[in-house]
């Protein structure tokens, strides 16, 4: 019995590309992330969902080496996020919540700068950039200034930017926030293609339950910095009752208090993003 278990564990480790152990972040008295321990498999599309202020973005910031944890640790492809931050940065891609492509540059230039920052050899730069543009369906607008792009196009450009160096793990923070339904579906399609063609592991945060349901292999519902429930969308639904949607699961595990999350800062930031996407 003992032996069987350790063999299973080993198989798990080989498959797992990202682990966190009791990962914790406190800001003064507030515990934004509280003892988070999750493991994500290679090639998995994993969703962190939860109301505003649940700690999703803080988790992403720690895993992308932007924010040092207060306690606990995490590793990506065997590299510790604190002690081997530089190696971690080389193998991850990151699309922040905000629309962060540079509006004063063309789409091509946005990619060119990142190709250089990620040490893509000069001889390969052009072909990689063009490939990424084509992959994201942006070839015909690559010479236009990004400030003239639609929100969905900017999002796709950012995903193109983050995949140039073929990251092993891609972090997408609220990838479809503020997008109209058609643009959302297009972004979804490209995320799924990215996974199937390059085997990229994707960790995304969202507070759209339909998005988590549609895209994710597994979902962790976060509430007040803790994982309230984790599993496949089907498992989560089954755990709450028959005929429920993921929205019901969400409400169930976040204690029917969705309205309580966020506050003025969150709301004004979301509004600002929405305005930019127009």
């Amino acid at each position, binding site marked *: 019995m003992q032996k069987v278990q350790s063999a299973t564990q080993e198989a798990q480790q080989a498959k797992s590309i990202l682990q966190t152990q009791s990962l914790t972040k406190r800001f003064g008295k507030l515990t934004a992330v509280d003892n988070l321990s999750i493991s994500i498999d290679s090639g998995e599309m994993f969703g962190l969902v939860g109301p505003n202020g649940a700690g999703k973005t803080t988790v992403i*910031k720690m895993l*992308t*080496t*932007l*924010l040092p944890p207060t306690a606990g640790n995490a590793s990506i492809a065997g590299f510790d996020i604190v002690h081997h931050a*530089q190696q971690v*940065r*080389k193998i*991850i891609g*990151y*699309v*922040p*919540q*905000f*629309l*962060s492509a*540079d509006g*004063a*540059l*063309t789409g091509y*230039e946005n990619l060119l*700068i*990142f190709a*250089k*920052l*990620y*040490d893509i050899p000069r001889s390969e730069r052009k072909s990689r950039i063009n490939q990424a543009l084509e992959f994201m369906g942006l070839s015909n607008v690559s010479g236009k*200034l990004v400030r003239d792009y639609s929100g969905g196009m900017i999002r796709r450009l950012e995903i193109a*930017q*983050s995949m140039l160096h073929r990251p092993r793990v891609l972090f997408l923070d609220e990838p479809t926030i503020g997008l109209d339904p058609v643009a959302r579906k297009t972004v979804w399609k490209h995320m799924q293609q990215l996974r199937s063609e390059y085997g990229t592991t994707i960790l995304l945060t969202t507070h759209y339950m339909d998005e988590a349901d549609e895209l994710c292999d597994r979902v962790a519902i976060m509430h007040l910095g803790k994982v309230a429930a984790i599993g496949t969308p089907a498992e989560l639904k089954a755990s709450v009752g028959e005929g429920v949607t993921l929205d019901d699961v969400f409400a169930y595990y976040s204690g029917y208090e969705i309205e309580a999350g966020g506050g003025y800062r969150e709301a004004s930031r979301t509004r600002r993003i929405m305005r930019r996407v127009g």
Partner: protein
Amino acid sequence: MQVSRFNDYVGAVTNFVGKTLTIAELEARKLHHDYTDLLTRAVQPALWLLIYGEVMSSIKAIPTGNLSYMDFVAPGILAQSVLFIAIFYGIAIIWERDLGIVHKMLASPTPRSALVLGKALSASERGLSQAAIVYLLALAVGIHLNGNPMALVLVIIVVILGGALFSTFSLIVACLVKTRERFMGIGQILTMPLFFASSAIYPIAMMPSWLQAASRVNPLTYEVDALRTLMIVGGPSAYGLTYDFAALLLATAIMVAIAAKLYPRVVR
């Protein structure tokens, strides 16, 4: 063993220089697409030189030795307009932080010091456009400009250093205050003392002794001194070019080192 360590060192330096230039290239490409900002920035030095300069020149209140007041003040106005651009550069960092651009840069394997120095050189690029404008204005009003090519190259270097120095200072302030509103207030507070405690518009000898002491630790003093020596025919030098350059380089290096430590904090 020795050789491989040497190679590591060369590799790190090459990487640092390459990444710094990539960040600076980003700004150059932006300016290439839209240079209206550069044109509006030309208004301020024009006002200072054509109105302030001419008025002060006609009342002959400021003793400037062998130089006419216009010759004396032109390098000061160049230093000042570079300072004004650079000192508010931190606001661009806060803006880019709000957009998430800084997050993406920091999550990439780019050395922090290269991100900071690249941004500093971006401010210098804008400063160089000011140099072009001040030279054109100076030519138009008959200021005795030194056309020596070597001197011109050194002027460019001084402007680059001045822009880098004060924009990095501004970046440090931005990393500490973190919001645009607070930054605007502090930017205003910083600019005028730096400007007045330098020899930009009057000789240091005219200052009260406490202000003279302040001017000695103000890097702008050395920037103005170097520019006055290099730009103007017969331009005097209070401290000598070597001393001026050493002071500017040292101050820039210190600022970049501090800013590289603080920069990651801006997204936390």
